[in-house]
């Protein structure tokens, strides 16, 4: 009976490997979706000026104020990219992992949930400015992404940031820097 159990376990592992091996490139990931339109509204603002350069300098300033390092830029295309390393530890997650490890230790086994706790993150910001369609305003669009590493230095999460508050905070700082109010699109 025990042998049988072992065999089925092996079979499951084999099946998992087989399925992973078959993972192919999904189709249609370059198609615009409803969700991407919603994100557009989140990430985009308009300013009542045609001075793109002024906005771009302000953007660079705001990013630096937020602790970002500028990685790349092309002023003629209205593009600035920046990134920032930050702490990603959360007390709740660490406490939970500690508790799990404690239970494992009490049960006489070796647990290492702590190694899977988030440790550090890199946030990438990319800003594009361009004239609006009627060429009377300037459109600004910022996108944030983040990569999170755990305690054993493995990537535990990659995601684009979709928290409206973060975007709002960025545009509040930008509006202050150029003395203009941001208009939602």
């Amino acid at each position, binding site marked *: 009976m025990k042998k049988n159990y072992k065999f089925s376990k092996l079979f499951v592992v084999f099946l998992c490997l087989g399925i992973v091996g078959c993972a192919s490139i999904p189709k249609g990931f*370059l*198609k615009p979706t409803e969700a991407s339109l919603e994100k557009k509204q989140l990430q985009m603002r308009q300013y009542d000026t045609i001075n793109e350069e002024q906005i771009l300098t302000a953007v660079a300033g705001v990013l630096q104020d937020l602790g970002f390092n500028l990685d790349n830029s092309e002023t003629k295309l209205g593009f600035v990219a920046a990134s920032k390393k930050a702490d990603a530890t959360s007390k709740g997650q660490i406490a939970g992992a500690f508790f799990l490890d404690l239970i494992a230790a009490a049960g006489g086994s070796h647990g290492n949930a702590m190694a899977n706790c988030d440790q550090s993150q890199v946030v990438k910001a990319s800003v594009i400015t361009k004239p609006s369609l009627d060429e009377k305003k300037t459109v600004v669009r910022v996108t944030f992404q983040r990569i999170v590493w755990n305690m054993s230095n493995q990537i535990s999460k990659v995601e684009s940031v979709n928290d409206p508050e973060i975007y709002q905070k960025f545009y509040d700082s930008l509006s202050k820097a150029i003395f203009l109010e941001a208009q939602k699109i």
Partner: protein
Amino acid sequence: MKRLTRYFGISVILFFVIVLSGCATTAGKAFEMNESQVKLRSIQTRAFDTTDKQKMMQTVISTMQDLEFVIDKADLVLGSVSGSKFLGYAIVTMTVNVRPRGEKQLLVRANAQYGIKSVEDPETYQDFFTALEKAIFLTGQKVD
């Protein structure tokens, strides 16, 4: 004695097989191409009836942003834009190149990579060019 030398010979051969196979490098794998180069180029390229490179590049950037890419690099002189996007745990990277073709046209070429595989599916690229066409109000023509 004869047997012993035979075993010795076999083990020497085995030893060499193992050592020599260890010397094969995997660098060549990075340069492999599955589809024929010409076919792939026509899948990835469209020609547009415009000469405004800057506007084309701005539209490419906007389209990529609409497709949830984060722009990593852009260069007006080279005409290249690179961006990345996360799909679950996979990273999709794309580079789009814009360059003049003759006096009246611009060539737009897109290269996408999904994780460590390069994307060679025509439909995926068509999706991108359809989105780009809508944004620039022009139709892209296939080129050979």
